[in-house]
């Protein structure tokens, strides 16, 4: 049976409230797609972090700029795009928040969390010239959605107390 991709998109203002709005919208899509509670948390957190990144780093909190959020539901995964109107950035230039010298940094963990919580994650140059975050989560197979659903490839805690 052929499956069609469902596509949703919204244009967000560069304001703090857009972070919650984007999270809520994507959570509804994730729940409707059958993701369990833990995966919904990870997807919601990743969307938050993507929009925070666009709001703060990409658009420099400038209200004249927009944030573009899109969600694609394909036959096997949920794909989220977050595009800003900044100047873009390279993942290689993002400091490692787990490095000893960065542990007490007050910022710079958003990209790390998205990579940890999603199955696929990349940053490309968007049509606006800004950064476009593209991240995806594999859809749960029927009957597998549970409150203890698995996270992304890096979601396992890396240390114990």
């Amino acid at each position: 049976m052929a499956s069609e991709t469902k596509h949703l998109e919204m244009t967000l203002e560069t304001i703090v409230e857009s972070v919650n709005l984007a999270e809520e919208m994507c959570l509804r899509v994730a729940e409707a797609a059958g993701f369990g509670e833990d995966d919904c948390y990870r997807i919601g957190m990743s969307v938050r972090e993507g929009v925070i990144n666009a709001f703060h780093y990409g658009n420099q909190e400038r209200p004249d700029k927009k944030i573009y959020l899109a969600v694609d539901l394909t036959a096997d995964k949920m794909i989220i795009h977050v595009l800003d109107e900044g100047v873009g950035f390279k993942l290689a230039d993002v400091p490692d928040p787990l490095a000893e010298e960065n542990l007490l940094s007050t910022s710079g963990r958003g990209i790390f969390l998205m990579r940890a919580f999603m199955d696929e994650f990349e940053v490309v140059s968007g049509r606006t010239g800004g950064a476009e975050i593209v991240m995806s989560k594999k859809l749960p197979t029927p009957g597998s959605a549970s409150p203890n659903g698995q996270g992304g490839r890096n979601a396992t805690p890396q240390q114990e107390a």
Partner: protein
Amino acid sequence: MSLHATHRDAGKVTVVDLSGRIVLGDGSALLRKTIRGLLEDQRKMILLNLADVDYIDSSGIGELVSGFTAVKNQSGDLKLLHLTKKVKDLLQITKLYTVFDVFTDEGTAIRSFS
């Protein structure tokens, strides 16, 4: 759910009871204001009770770290109590779990300041 914060004294230790989400915006701002206010009142031994905080984003993590550093810079201490599973997992994957002193019992946590 927005963040709520109340504090109470336990000897020289101030226990801050937080509930809600510590996220970008009002939540992070309230946490910053609460810690800075305590430092201005010379309350430098701070125990954050996170029992009712089930969500922290990167902004909230940054504010926890900022508060920790501010308190340490004034020769005080900031410790954490009653982490929910999600918050504990978040501190573990960001390697902050070993930066903060974390407790599951309030009495033990308060005594640890002496």
